[in-house]
């Protein structure tokens, strides 16, 4: 258990005991990751902020279900994931329209490469939903494989498999982005 995890556990316990400082500390510590999680998966900034608020209200209602012996992040992201699913169900029709006319990331785009910055959100946008979720939790949520498995109600093996498939797809996209004349080194076929 890292120091950050131990801190979060401590604050969660204080939150359960109604320490007035604890909600502020937890909101400040966890919200940026949660917001990024929603932004990567759902794109719209306004929608991500709505989802963040819903998540915190749900966390508040469910705070008794956190056990101090368990890690905090899978508990938080399991709730966040569910908020996202419920939100999607409620707005299914609107969402379908938004996806059809919204920004679709270009897998073969060279802008990111040319500027020397690989945009995580853009690249991950090409992945199928379940792989994108796993990669986003690993990267934006800073969760371990075990924690992702807990948050998604899956097994570590299944998470590893999804991550592996996602790496393959991302590699292909990156290979397409390499400017002509630069060859990837030492790849076995």
């Amino acid at each position, binding site marked *: 258990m890292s120091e950050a995890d131990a801190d979060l556990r401590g604050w969660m316990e204080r939150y359960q005991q109604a320490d007035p400082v604890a909600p502020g500390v937890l909101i400040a510590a966890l919200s940026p990751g949660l917001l990024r999680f929603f932004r990567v998966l759902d794109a719209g900034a306004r929608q991500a902020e709505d989802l963040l*608020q819903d998540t915190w209200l749900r966390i*508040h209602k469910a705070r008794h279900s956190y056990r101090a012996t368990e890690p905090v992040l899978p508990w938080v992201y399991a709730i966040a994931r*569910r908020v996202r699913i419920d939100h999607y169900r409620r707005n299914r029709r609107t969402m379908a329209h938004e996806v059809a006319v919204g920004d679709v990331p270009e897998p073969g785009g060279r802008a990111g490469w040319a500027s020397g910055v690989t945009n995580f959100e853009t690249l991950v946008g090409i992945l199928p939903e379940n792989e994108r979720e796993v990669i986003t939790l690993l*990267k934006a949520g800073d969760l371990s*494989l075990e924690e992702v498995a807990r948050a998604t109600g899956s097994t570590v093996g299944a998470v590893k498999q999804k991550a592996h498939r996602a790496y393959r797809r991302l590699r292909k996209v*990156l290979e397409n982005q390499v400017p002509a004349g630069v060859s*990837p080194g030492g790849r076995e076929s």
Partner: protein
Amino acid sequence: MNCQEVERLIRGQARPTRFRLPDPAVAHLSQCPVCRGLAELLTRRDAAPPAPMEILRNLEQQIAQDLHAVKPMRPAAYYAAGFTAWFVAFAAAGGWMLKPLAVGVMSPWLCATIWAALGISAGLVIMSLVGQMTPGCRGRVNPVRLPFAILLILPAFFSTMLPHRAEADFWRLGWICLICGLTVFVPAAVAYGLLLRQGALLSPRLAGATLGLLGGLTGTTVLEIHCPLQTALHVVTWHLGVPLITTAGCLMMAILIGRGGAHAS
């Protein structure tokens, strides 16, 4: 190191964002732009953009208005024991009140096999329910696949174990068994529901279906202790019809309640 080895190295990390690549891998990255891109993408721990302060302050205020101490949930084993105790109590009480006539018509081995199958199924359903009570808990039984698996495997198992005989009064006697099983389901579901509401259910639909399945299995167990008509067709149709009806019924009820709540809000 080559591309595959670097990829394997990154892939093998339990938490890629807290992983520092060894020197041979770093040397490879300096030559290979694709691996460099992939490694930067997956292992670099970039700070998430800050959330708008106004939203955070608003959230803090909302939570502060309703901040009171809560008692943390007890360990999962406590709830598992609670569900198991209720299941055993209802099965035993139901079998005793209706008289254990099935014991007289089945061999001890057949009794043990059928009760064991029902007990194992109930145990898996209890594990699923307990898992659903706590978000992000470890080793949860898949709550979506489990009802399907049980409602498919049990009929197949019972039809291979029990004799296939034609019976008179199939509909009338079957109807009696169905009503009997559903009557046991009602108090059992209330007892299970009281335990279940102590948790934080993320998906009321799934929890409803699982609760219905456990209540239905309680009814089936009582029928397997009481009913002297132990033929494959009767048991599969009427005794196992109880969990099928209760699972579907509880799922429908959870959906309707959820929709009602969404409309109200």
